[in-house]
């Protein structure tokens, strides 16, 4: 196998796999290097499956809306796998007046950029989801949001990209990027050197360290997120859920199980022992959070809990696109814990950027050169 391709992608998560897929569809040769032994082993397989527009920063909203209009509805057929995409709306729940204020703020910002989202009262909330507790007094409602299965979607992109001839190599940790005659060209791993006209850096949290080898610093840090899943339950509802308090989020899957993520408040300071491991205090806390909203689930059995690192950027939106100082480098990282829903459009736009030089959605606000001091 050749170590050269038109594009070398660092990172075999959903961003790397999907970018590889869209590039290969355009006839571009691609090598994907994944540091771990498994495809999609970072946030791609650890997130809550939200395909959301509501609650997002206006800078990334056009990109995710583009994906929801152009990619998600047909993704299962395209990837020949059940992505379990449901577009049945997102409820962001509030229990106090303060919550409702937070939700109102988010709603106002989204409406300003053209998203169909509105505040609803407790009766309307329960009309949409009759299982919610009496504590819920209102919510924001975005009917075009939804959720999907991150595992099958990520691996579906991988499968199709591989089928189109993309070379994937796992267990290949990138140590260094190297410019040749002023242009980024080489990707150096423990035992190999790969070469490409373009290098896409989609390595999640590891991106910062890798970019640093060509003098680029992406202001992001790790934060731990934890999630859990229940046994299968009879079908109850199809909406994606979140809360103003951000104490849990999640949905019921096609399988019948409930996937919920949440927080104990300790995750920003979790001990980093090299692997994302769960904290013994978090899952119980998530359970308590869920039960406040869904007392009906108190007998549902938890079968699995897990943790994942999120690549949290200082301003909360991803870093996408070219980097002027390093020709040949394309950044695709810093998704800050909400990269799954936006992945299809982000990846397709990067593929357009690399092959055509232009994109359907303007990525200017997401470029690396946006970071500035506050005054």
């Amino acid at each position: 196998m050749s170590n050269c391709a038109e594009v070398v992608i660092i990172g075999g998560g959903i961003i790397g796999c999907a970018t590889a897929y869209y590039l290969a569809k355009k006839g571009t040769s691609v090598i994907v290097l994944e540091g771990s032994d498994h495809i999609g082993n970072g946030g791609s397989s650890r997130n809550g499956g939200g395909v959301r527009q509501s609650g997002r920063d206006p800078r990334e909203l056009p990109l995710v809306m583009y994906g929801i209009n152009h990619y998600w509805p047909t993704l299962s057929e395209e990837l020949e796998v059940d992505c379990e995409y449901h577009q049945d709306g997102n409820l962001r729940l509030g229990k106090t007046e303060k919550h409702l204020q937070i939700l109102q703020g988010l709603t106002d910002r989204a409406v300003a950029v053209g998203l169909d989202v509105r505040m609803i009262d407790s009766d309307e909330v329960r009309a949409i989801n009759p299982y919610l507790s009496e504590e819920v007094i209102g919510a924001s409602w975005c009917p075009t949001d939804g959720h999907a299965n991150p595992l099958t979607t990520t691996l579906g992109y991988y499968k199709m990209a591989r089928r189109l001839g993309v070379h994937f190599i796992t267990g290949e940790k990138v140590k260094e990027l190297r410019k040749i005659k002023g242009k980024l060209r080489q990707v150096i791993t423990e035992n190999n050197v790969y070469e490409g006209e373009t290098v896409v850096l989609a390595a999640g949290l590891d991106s910062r360290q890798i970019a640093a080898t060509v003098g680029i610093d992406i202001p992001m840090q790790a934060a731990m997120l934890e999630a859990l899943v229940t046994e299968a339950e009879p079908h109850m509802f199809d909406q994606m859920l979140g809360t103003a308090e951000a104490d849990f989020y999640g949905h019921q899957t096609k399988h019948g199980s409930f996937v919920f993520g949440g927080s104990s408040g300790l995750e920003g300071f979790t001990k980093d022992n090299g692997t994302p491991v769960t904290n013994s205090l978090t899952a119980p806390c998530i359970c308590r959070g869920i039960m406040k909203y869904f007392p009906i689930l108190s007998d549902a059995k938890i079968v699995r809990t897990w943790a994942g690192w999120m690549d949290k950027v200082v301003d909360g939106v991803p870093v996408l696109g070219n980097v002027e100082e390093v020709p040949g480098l394309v950044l695709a990282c810093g998704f800050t814990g909400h990269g799954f829903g936006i992945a299809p459009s982000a990846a397709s736009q990067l593929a357009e950027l690399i092959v055509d030089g232009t994109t359907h959605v303007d990525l200017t606000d997401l470029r690396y050169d946006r970071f500035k001091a506050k005054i």
Partner: protein
Amino acid sequence: MKRYDLIIVGAGPSGLSAAIEAARRGLNVVVFDENEKPGGQLFKQIHKFFGSKEHKAKIRGFVIGEQLLKEADEAGVEVVLNATVIGLYQDKEVVVRIGEAVHHYKGDAVIIATGASENMVTFDGWTLPGVIGAGAAQTMMNLHGVKPGNKVLMLGSGNVGLVVSFQLLQCGCEVVALVDAAPKVGGYGVHAAKVARTGVPFYLSHTIVKAEGEECVTGVTIAEVDSHFQFIPGTEKHFDVDTICLAVGLSPMSQLLKMAGCEMEDNPKRGGQVPICDEYGRTSLPGVFVAGDVSGIEEASSAMIEGRMAGIVAAEYLGYMEKEELDSNLVDLDKALDGLRQGMFAPKNRGKDIETTDEGIPVSKNLLKHGFVADDEIERFPGVTHAKGIHPVMECTQNIPCNPCQDACPKHCIRIGSNITALPAVEEGSECVGCGMCVASCSGQAIFLVDETYEEGYASITIPYEFLPLPEVGAKGNALGRDGKKVCDAEVISVKSIPAFDKTNLLTMKVPTEYAMKARFYKEA
């Protein structure tokens, strides 16, 4: 957070043994077990154990379980039952579900003694109700007093398959066949022989083609396999059964260790995914130890010694014992463990073809193929001799670590010697008084008392008999050969049940003299 010196996960033979040793050295020890009853699998083991005195040989498994519990109690061990360890987190934090709450505990040391889980095989219909694990059969009959089925086919001729088949017979089930894809019986020959002589046919180089039935098992088809384990067309055999029992090996239940970040390896010799550890159970995580099947599949006897080792190693780790004391303690335990790991079935011999015993005697091919030693093979073993009057006949034909018979005879008629795996031989010049202690003490039920001159034209044969109903003196029935087939008529002339025999009844039958070395079981006509 509540902290213990030592938290042990699993109250089976290794976990309890570890707890006892550690608590005796002054450690504050707690043992968590998810089951309602402690003892792990010991309480389902109703046969007498192999080994020597130090391994608690000739004591039945459930009795050993009771002894361990008593010792643990006396040593001050806290055993918490119905306590499911749901996770082993960083910093040796153990989270346990007890009742309606989860509890967080930390241990300065942790011993994982979670044992093993059963392997499974797939065949058409393997998900039907009525297809069960051998462990399930043991649980139902020996713990809950419910027969697992009426007509049972056993798949697997390892010790578990053989022992459970015998237990099925003991609780009144019919075992229609014992089947194994391997060409040779995998477990101890003595276990196979006691099953075969009751009339259970062995089908080696056979496996299950399909389980039949719509709602539950109503039958099974087996067929012969070639050396690549492919079915040979035309060799199918059908049995009407309501239960298919699977005994196809065990895998270490090591998930907690992997979860905690222990270095693991896939080691087929140890039965699967095991922690990388030293001979005393020290894993790659400081203060986390393992003992018993979780670190490699063996027997309960070795699990108990491994547990004791891990217990004292943990004691030394926490400063409750000096290094010198530890080393001297380990010498005896090393020796005891080494004793169990000798002989034909030693871990080092797994997968090897052994043609002769240590004594240079060709092994019985028939035993390996059909589960019993053929009449023309038996005489070559040292335990099988002819003598005037009553004398023991020891049909122990493989080198296994076991010697209770040597100590059982008050007249010292039986000699094994210092090598625990040597075949038992009759001590020349000794005189058998026919007390039957050797018959009752033999964990393999391989010793018989034979008197070829019992009566004119008749011999008497005393056999171990652990079935109900117990035949009455004077009953007339059939004498079965080692193959379980009728060899002649027999009359019961004595049935002895004394406490010293520990529920192994001694049934003596009278058969025509020419069958003295052939008849080995009694069945009502």
